[in-house]
């Protein structure tokens, strides 16, 4: 019997199996941010164990509330900053250089096929887009990861999703993952890895693959995974060209991180996506999904474009294409947060920031803030947000607020009309 990519990664990293179905894996990366890491740091200090297993494998960023909004968030930043300095963690991204963790860490070349990665953040599953096993964990697992460079997991049971056909113009990876979550339900992939495969994924950019894998957790999944291919190699080439003579050599090496044809799966689901329409969430669970057409006319108060799901350059380009030469409705306010400084710079050079500003958007610095109602765009009670983020939980973007998750194109369309609309209405 063959093995899945996740099983192969487990086999290459297992350091212990102390109990049945308990796989202790060696970690290639431990990512940290200022919300879940400070308590791990203070606990390690209190235990007299203020050490790190390898400062070159730990990467840290202040991203959730930046600039600090009050004394408490300033203190969280300070704990992380002081710790990074104390332990000589060179890849620490403070304000001016910081961005949303799941956008900036891939952009800096920290993720490679076959890696094991943990972070105290549920959307760590994003990094599976590179053919890595990347899982969100809590502060205690993070603490052990920082200290010992290991983490324990159950066997990676896997759901394989085969995507065939071709996405229609105006339909994006976000629409596809909302559809898949609706199919799987919010706990349909609990304790499982979700493999995204097939010609639709093969044709996708790394940005789109990250959007897919990012929301694996919304179906309960431990990690979303795409097989590494030439698109992966192209994205990483600046960082790996010293390791390989040619891109073909890199691809040949990375090809060991692909599931065998006779691998065993919990479920295999195949969808032809050619008829898929733009999708949007309703209610307070991410599996409550309808087509944009069904929700057309629903009034919104705020538009938010950004986050680890849809704050990358591809997303801003897609939104700008809809917004170009148009104004947002007088009945809404709109915010865009490019996910990293590099994305912000690209968007400036390409004239995208100007398009957003001319349309009436507020352009903020890179931060997670609004997505979880912490800063930079919190909703008031009774308000509705058209958002490119990943969670529509009750109160997520502000107590008493309602969030409709959608693609950047659909969010741009909602900004123009003040209601949920299909973006093709506004395309040139």
């Amino acid at each position, binding site marked *: 019997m063959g093995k899945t990519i996740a099983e192969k990664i487990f086999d290459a990293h297992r350091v212990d199996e102390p109990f049945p179905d308990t796989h202790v894996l060696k970690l290639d990366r431990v990512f940290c941010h200022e919300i879940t890491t400070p308590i791990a740091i203070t606990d390690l200090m209190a235990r007299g164990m203020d050490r790190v297993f390898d400062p070159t494998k730990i990467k840290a960023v202040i991203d959730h509330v930046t600039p600090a909004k009050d004394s408490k968030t300033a203190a969280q930043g300070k704990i992380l900053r002081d710790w990074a300095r104390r332990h000589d963690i060179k890849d620490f991204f403070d304000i001016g250089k910081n961005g949303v963790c799941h956008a900036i860490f891939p952009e800096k070349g920290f993720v490679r096929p076959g890696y094991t990665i943990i972070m105290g953040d549920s959307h760590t599953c994003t990094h599976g887009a590179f053919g890595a096993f990347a899982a969100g964990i809590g502060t205690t697992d993070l603490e052990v990861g920082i200290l010992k460079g290991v983490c324990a997991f159950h066997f990676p049971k896997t759901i394989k999703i085969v995507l065939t056909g071709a996405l229609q113009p105006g339909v994006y990876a976000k629409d596809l993952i909302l559809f898949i979550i609706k199919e799987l339900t919010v706990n349909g992939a609990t304790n499982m890895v979700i493999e995204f495969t097939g010609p639709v994924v093969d044709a996708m950019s790394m940005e789109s693959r990250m959007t897919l894998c990012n929301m694996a957790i919304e179906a309960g999944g431990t990690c979303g995974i795409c097989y590494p291919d030439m698109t992966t190699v192209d994205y990483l080439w600046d960082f790996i060209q010293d390791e390989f003579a040619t891109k073909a050599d890199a691809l040949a090496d990375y090809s060991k991180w692909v599931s065998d044809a006779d691998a065993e799966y919990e479920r295999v689901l195949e969808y032809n996506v050619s008829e898929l329409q733009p999708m949007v969430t309703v209610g307070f669970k991410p599996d409550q999904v309808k087509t944009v057409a069904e929700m057309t006319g629903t009034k919104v108060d705020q538009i938010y474009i950004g986050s680890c799901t849809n704050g990358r350059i591809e997303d801003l380009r897609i939104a700008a294409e809809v917004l170009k030469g148009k104004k947002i409705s007088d009945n809404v306010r709109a915010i865009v947060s490019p996910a990293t400084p590099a994305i912000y710079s690209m968007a400036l050079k390409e004239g995208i920031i100007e398009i957003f500003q001319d349309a009436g958007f507020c352009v903020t610095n890179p931060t997670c803030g609004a997505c979880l109602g912490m800063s930079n765009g919190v909703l008031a009670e009774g308000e509705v947000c058209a958002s490119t983020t990943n969670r529509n939980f009750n*109160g997520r973007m502000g107590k008493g607020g309602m969030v409709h998750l959608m693609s950047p194109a659909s969010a741009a369309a909602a900004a123009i009309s003040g209601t949920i609309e299909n973006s093709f209405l506004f395309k040139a």
Partner: protein
Amino acid sequence: MKTFKGNVLFLDRSDINTDEIIPAKYLTEITKEALKPNLLEDLVLPGFSRADTEDKAVIVTRENFGCGSSREHAPWALEVNGINVVIAESFARIFRQNMYNCGMFAIELPKETIDGLFANYAGKAVTMAVDVDRNQITIQADGKSETIDFKVGEFDQTLVKEGGWVGYADKNY
């Protein structure tokens, strides 16, 4: 080891997420105690009020408890309110592991058993006690007593007995 005994809070809903258990705006706290007043503040459940969590030690609920964010603040908010046991049909992976990593119990029982607990005990004054060595829950209500067996993996049981994952990992890796 923590204590696993006391009054029961019944939450009759599936998919209670960690944003409901402790909203993100409290994630700026850097002590666990500070989370105490805000447990289940955003829970969507008709008839529920924050006062219902007082003097409780065990939660009984439905499917997929603790889904969403990885925040360990969710188990901590339970812990500082004296709740070290959650019994459910199923849990989200990260929440479940966080519970055991903190030396707390996230016990899964079959749907029929959970249905029975709600049918027989919800709304009554009921206490439960978890026996760590025998993998048994003892329920007391109306002067009567009932025991239910549960399954827990060896790793999780070890974490409960050792009081969490940090000490275990430090010793072994």
